[in-house]
């Protein structure tokens, strides 16, 4: 397999930094937003940030594992979206709210 060099203009670190920024945004959104749907979107953001790291390292080390793994993550994310949205719908039906702090009856 011939060596395919990374484009010189974009160093490896930048990809990782972008991934870290995206992940941090996801964490921040997850922690500080109160709307369930926004929280849900933040989770998707974190997943995709990790996907970016996977692909980056896969490219760097010339191994296909990272690519395959990111596909798995996408599949899981799609399944999770389906289930998660169904849960959100049910919560809204029962409680007429999307405030995440209102949904806390499983405490203690």
């Amino acid at each position, binding site marked *: 397999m011939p060596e395919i060099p990374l484009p010189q203009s974009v160093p490896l670190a930048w990809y990782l930094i972008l991934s870290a920024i995206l992940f941090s945004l996801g*964490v921040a959104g*997850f*922690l*500080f937003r*109160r709307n369930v749907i926004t*929280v849900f979107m933040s989770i998707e953001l974190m997943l995709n940030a990790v996907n970016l790291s996977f692909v980056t390292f896969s490219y760097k080390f010339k191994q296909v594992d990272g690519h395959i793994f990111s596909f798995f993550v996408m599949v899981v994310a799609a399944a999770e979206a389906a289930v998660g949205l169904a849960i959100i719908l049910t919560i809204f039906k029962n409680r007429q709210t999307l405030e*995440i*702090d209102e*949904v*806390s*009856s*499983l*405490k*203690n």
Partner: protein
Amino acid sequence: MQNLWIIPLLPLAGFALNGLFGRRFPKAVINTIAVGSVLLAFLWVLKSLSALGAFSGGLEETHVEHYFTWIQSGVLNIGVDFAVDRLTAVMLLIVTGIGTLIHIYAVGYMAHEGGYYRFFAYLNLFMFFMLTLVLAQNFLLLFVGWEGVGLCSYLLIGFYFTEKFATDAGNKAFIVNRIGDFGFSLAIFLITIHFGTLDFGSVFSQAKALPIETSPGWITAIALLLLVGATGKSAQIPLYVWLPDAMAGPTPVSALIHAATMVTAGVYMIARSSSIFLHSPLALNVVAVIGIATAFFAATIGLVQNDIKKVFAYSTVSQLGYMFVGLGTGAFSAGIFHVMTHAFFKALLFLGAGSVIHALSGEQDLRQMGGLAKKIPITCGVLFCASIAIAGVPFTSGYFSKDLILESAYEYAPWMFWVGLFTAGMTAFYVFRAFFLAFTGKYRGKVHHPHESPFVMWGPLAILAALSLGGGFINIPKYLEPLFPLAEGSKLPPLASFSLLSVGLVGIALAYVMYVLAPGLPESLASSFRPIYTLIYNKYFIDEAYDSAVVHPVIDGSRSLLWRTIDAGAIDGTVNGVGKTARAIGSVLRHAQSGYIRSYAGWVVAGAILVVIVMGLTGISFGVTR
């Protein structure tokens, strides 16, 4: 093959039928099953024994039948094997023969009692276990029968289970026997260790092959532990206390189990293990001393009891003591001879007493009887036969067997002979005391019109009376000679043999003087020897001594130490403490479960940051490598 297994199986079938369906059967069916199964077993015994030549000089070798392997573990191989030799033949005839008679008698005696089918089911179950015990060809199978008869004894003593004293007596019998059985099972373990087998044939041939002049400690230990088992089952000092209380059961039970058969199991077991005992002079000495002590003390207690069944119960203990004297002094066949004659006359005494009690509608106190000779003449006649037999009047059955035992005792130690002779005098005295109190003088009871028992009851009594008088002419020691070689017939000195002949008559004469000619004499004697009388009347306070020395410490110790301290305190406390601690920790930790998803997420993030910091500071990689 003689199909010996049929013998115990017949009563077992009777037990199963009556036990499972007896509630719905009419009495006639229950009687047929119960008596029929035992009678058939008796007939099968006769058939097998005559086929083996037991009545015509044969059966000098043991006839063994192997059915199947029961336990196979390493080199230990225990089979379900039945065997017949001459000793077993004698026991089989006693058990099934007397058993049949007593079953027939019980049909009359129990006619008005509740729980009729239950009684006969237990009685048949007893026959099954007793026959297993005598037929067994190894120690473990014998132990099965041994425990089984103990169980049936318990069930039948507590037959009137609505009465507290009856259930207490049943418990007492069972628990006291546990002590003996514990010794017996230790003996079985030791035999397994030292002989590597429990089969009678190979254990005894190995024991016989041991050099006779050396007696290793372990064989003495085995013999003494077997003796512990025998003292429990055969009611010897120190474990005899259960037998007098066992009279709480119905009278046929007292006759069958607590006089004729079960209590002689210990004697049978020691005679069976004679090759082990013969290698331990110490153990034989202990057997003889326990026997003579039991015979003497039980006889003294019997002198002053007022309950007719109690008198005969102590007499049973005393006569069992004689059997042990016979065994201990090496006259095994004399011991078995006494088992047989005792089975005749003691079964008859109990059944006769039952007939008296039946006539008086349940009265057992001798002071409430008197003058019954005219009212129940048949019972009076058969009881007279039994009484002269147990008193050892010359040429009755008891005379022959007791004579042999005492001769052997004289050879062993003369003091034992004289104590035994004195005891024989006391035996004659207390039996005739009971006889005269019940049958002569004026009627002192409250029950009107005592009535003679029906034929179904006095028929068996008549047969037993004939056996009590003539049973001594069956020469058991000669018959058992292939098993227990007879000692050289050393003659007693004339004084001893003359006193042996006359001692029974002297005892009877004394009883006649005290209770017929001068009825006030016993009372004045009792008041002039008040302390001794009180001591004996209260059975030497042995029950009270055991209560305060063993029973109360065990109960109190169990209650305060084992129950309150260890069980409730330590064990429950530990378990409850674990639960309480978990709840306390949980009640603190559950505040972390706020229910807010964002707080959980915060914890996750904090944890992740912590891990990263630790990794960065310490360089620990937690398994993450390039």
